[in-house]
């Protein structure tokens, strides 16, 4: 698409060959004496201690799961325990090479990585900063609890704080690091660089990629690490993320000085198995995991296979990759081979591997081997390792005893405050925009498209009251564009991406002209990777960025299902309310292109807790709601109807204001007043409902039409007030009726407006079958005549009226056959 890059047939058609890549496999061979000279014996002994802490910590979890008892401490732990016994060197070696301000994003099996990173940060950060971190977390309460329960100070207190906060989180206690809302597979603590772990296999890849985008843009010199298992190489979103992190445009089009890729390290802890499926040889096509980098980019992602049983081999490789990343030569990939000596989980019967195989790997247990190496080098005295192990065990026992004591770690008392978890879903906070123009943004007057926008009439009605053509007046598309442009030009943190959204301006032209004034690193074309588009938006927001991303059609939500449903929707609550996720996801609802390009999936999104959902139907509402979405600290999905992009403003006498304004979420608006029937509309259903109202008015029936505007949140009061006056309630939606938001609204109004209703509420939606092609659409989406039919039949059965629409079907009979 960009005109800067010529697609030259004489180059692309030339006979040539792509040279094979050299991929290093177990290249590490630094003598231990050199390592000791480079790092000092104390730091290597410290690595051993960190591995012992992880081993003991996970042994404790294993004991609770198996026996309900660890060193005479009884506790019933009902949650998951995906242990990494045997894999400690991978985690500790990596953390050793990382900076405290590098950020790791983990997997379901990330206790080791979390502890290793936290312990390494505690060992490296100045004590004053540790004190600040502990004072800042939860107002210093966790620090006080830990210090009272365990009685240490300084760095030892910080280690106790890490172990206590993490274990309390695993046990889902109120003072766990994430308020007990994360647990074993989701715990995190950003001040030590431990960003969210993720229970969805491979999900951290895209999130860490978005986080790396933010780090590149703020140029803070830090990197992000995406932890995943070998099994995650089978996940499409992981491939999408690796490509997203290595796109050609960083080096060839971006002018931000950040180099040719994103500073993210894809760190695959390759233990040769998923749960029971063996990757190399059975479920995957690669023989060596490191080979996959070559499929992504000319750098091959600098991929290597390293020995995950040796912390120094891992540290050496991570340090080298880190140097590449901070000079702009990322991303990188490491295939870190190690072996899970324990089961996948405590119910693992090891049916998929032999006793002999386990034995072979037990012989290279990383902890024992590293202790032997240090002993042989003469820096670890005989018995010193064992003494260290016993000391670690005492400490883990002390921390565990404190955490299972409800005086120190109380459970989350939901009964005392039943909506407590609910309140964590949204912060309901908004940012204020800087008044100055963001750096690097050009003058809108230099863009022909933006000059054209400025020339348009603000109202969509002529003096004679006629509707103006969309070229002459501000449309819904323009309303969105104005709000977005205002935020883009004033808030440097806001970055927008999506498919074809730069020069093309998005498939429907909302961003047209934006590329004339916004640099590539603020607005860019993404690959056709819906999962990565959304996952990166989440990661970018986790790191302090603000993300505006687009799915060309709402029908593609399925391609980003996990990213929308599990990531974007959930992290605010799973962080115990500590994290903000300012992500706006735009999704257009299509028309005319049939079953896979025209579906109203508002019902899918409103079903998922944690997403705010808006669906504007007028230019004025589009501009104001989009501004609120972009200012929101909570994640928002904005649905846009393709049929409405060209709608001009016909409701506001003064049209769409030039100056920015915001419309509060949750407030439905009466678009037409009436005394006899209340019709609530969702999105474009507003217009057929108004047409029906005009027709019914001729018959003496006055309809009040209320435009929902926002679906989540939603204030029912204006609707209930209206129903109290009219006694009749219908709701019109373009979504298939089964499971739709309209059904929820109908049930809610039935319950709370029952006393006033003279008839049951009526949902007028699309039928439960595919959206047909353009010429048949009027038989599918509710038309004015369908609304008139329904109103007459359900609310005025005594009036004689001929049915004119096609919806003369028996709902109950259809339901019986699955329709």
């Amino acid at each position: 698409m960009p005109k800067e890059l010529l697609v030259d047939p004489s180059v692309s058609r030339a006979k040539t060959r792509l040279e094979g890549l050299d991929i290093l496999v177990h290249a590490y061979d630094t003598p231990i004496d050199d390592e000791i000279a480079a790092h000092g014996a104390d730091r290597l002994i410290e690595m051993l201690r960190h591995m012992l802490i992880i081993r003991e910590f996970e042994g404790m979890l294993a004991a609770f799961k198996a026996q309900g008892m660890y060193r005479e401490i009884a506790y019933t732990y009902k949650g998951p325990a995906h242990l990494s016994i045997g894999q400690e060197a991978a985690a500790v070696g990596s953390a050793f090479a990382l900076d405290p301000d590098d950020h790791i994003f983990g997997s379901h099996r990330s206790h080791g990585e979390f502890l290793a990173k936290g312990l390494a940060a505690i060992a490296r950060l100045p004590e004053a900063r540790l004190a600040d971190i502990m004072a800042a977390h939860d107002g210093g309460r966790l620090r006080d609890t830990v210090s009272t329960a365990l009685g240490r100070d300084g760095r030892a207190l910080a280690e106790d704080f890490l172990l206590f906060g993490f274990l309390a989180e695993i046990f889902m206690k109120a003072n766990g690091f994430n308020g007990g809302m994360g647990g074993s597979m989701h715990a995190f603590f950003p001040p030590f660089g431990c960003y969210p772990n993720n229970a969805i296999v491979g999900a951290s890849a895209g999130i860490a990629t978005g986080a790396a985008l933010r780090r590149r843009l703020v140029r803070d010199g830090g990197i992000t690490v995406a932890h995943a298992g070998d099994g995650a190489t089978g996940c499409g979103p992981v491939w999408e993320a690796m490509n997203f992190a290595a796109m050609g445009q960083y080096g060839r089009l971006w002018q931000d000085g950040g180099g040719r890729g994103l500073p993210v390290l894809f760190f695959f802890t390759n233990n040769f198995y998923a749960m029971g499926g063996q990757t190399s040889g059975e479920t995957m096509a690669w023989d060596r995991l490191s080979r996959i980098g070559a499929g992504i980019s000319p750098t091959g992602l600098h991929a290597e296979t390293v020995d995950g049983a040796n912390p120094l081999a891992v540290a050496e490789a991570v340090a080298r990759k880190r140097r590449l990343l901070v000079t702009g030569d990322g991303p990188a990939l490491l295939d870190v081979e190690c072996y899970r000596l324990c089961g996948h989980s405590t119910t693992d019967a090891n049916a998929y591997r032999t006793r002999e195989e386990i034995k072979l790997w037990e012989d290279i247990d990383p902890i024992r081997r590293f202790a032997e190496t240090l002993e042989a080098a003469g820096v670890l005295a005989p018995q010193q390792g064992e003494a260290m192990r016993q000391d670690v065990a005492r400490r883990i026992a002390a921390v565990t005893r404190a955490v299972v004591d409800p005086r120190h770690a109380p459970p989350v008392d939901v009964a005392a405050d039943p909506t407590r978890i609910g309140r964590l879903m949204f912060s309901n906070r908004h940012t204020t925009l800087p008044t100055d123009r963001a750096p690097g943004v050009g003058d809108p007057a230099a863009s022909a498209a933006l000059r054209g926008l400025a020339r348009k009439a603000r109202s969509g009605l002529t003096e004679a009251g006629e509707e103006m053509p969309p070229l002459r007046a501000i449309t819904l598309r323009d309303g969105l564009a104005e709000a977005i442009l205002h935020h883009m030009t004033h808030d440097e943190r806001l970055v927008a991406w999506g498919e074809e959204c730069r020069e093309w301006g998005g498939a429907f032209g909302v961003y047209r002209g934006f590329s004339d004034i916004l640099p590539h690193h603020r607005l860019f074309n993404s690959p056709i990777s819906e999962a990565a588009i959304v996952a990166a938006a989440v990661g970018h927001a986790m790191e302090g960025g603000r993300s505006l991303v687009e799915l060309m059609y709402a029908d593609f939500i399925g391609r980003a299902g996990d990213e929308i449903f599990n990531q974007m929707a959930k992290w605010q609550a799973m962080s115990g309310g500590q994290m903000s996720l300012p992500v706006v996801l735009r999704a257009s609802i299509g028309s005319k292109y049939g079953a896979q390009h025209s579906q109203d999936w508002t019902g899918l999104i409103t079903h998922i807790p944690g997403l705010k959902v808006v669906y504007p139907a007028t230019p004025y509402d589009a501009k104001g709601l989009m501004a609120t979405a972009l200012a929101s600290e909570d994640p928002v999905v904005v649905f846009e109807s393709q049929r409405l992009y060209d709608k001009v403003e016909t409701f506001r006498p003064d049209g769409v204001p030039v100056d920015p304004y915001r419309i509060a979420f949750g407030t439905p608006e009466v678009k037409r007043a009436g005394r006899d029937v209340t019709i609530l509309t969702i999105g474009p259903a507003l217009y057929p409902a108004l047409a029906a109202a005009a027709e019914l008015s001729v018959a003496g029936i006055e309809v009040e039409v209320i435009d929902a505007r926002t679906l989540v949140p939603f204030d029912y009061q204006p609707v209930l007030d209206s129903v109290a006056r009219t006694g009749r309630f219908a709701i019109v939606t373009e979504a298939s009726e089964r499971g739709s938001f309209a059904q929820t609204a109908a049930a809610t109004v039935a319950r709370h407006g029952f006393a006033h209703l003279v008839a049951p509420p009526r949902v007028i939606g699309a039928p439960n079958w595919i959206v047909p092609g353009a010429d048949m659409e009027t038989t599918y989406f509710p038309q004015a005549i369908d609304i008139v039919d329904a109103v007459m039949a359900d609310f005025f059965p005594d009036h004689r009226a001929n049915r004119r629409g096609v919806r003369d079907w028996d709902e109950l009979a259809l339901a019986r056959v699955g329709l």
Partner: protein
Amino acid sequence: MTLLPVPQLGNEITEAEVSEWFRPDGAEVVQGEPVVSISTTKMAIDLEAPASGKLRILIAEGDIAEVGTVLARIE
């Protein structure tokens, strides 16, 4: 003399806006050279000079013209 009209841009499009003249009135233009950008609500396209000669602009930037309207003459 050759005319440069607003082309037919699709079955639902009746008019387009002159977004930008790339060359001023009176300029010598070469056949095939982009001379003007026009937009509909959905897209912007560049129109090329249909012949070489002197450009005579008839519709100014910012004006809206129906499909078929002559935007310029090439003399």
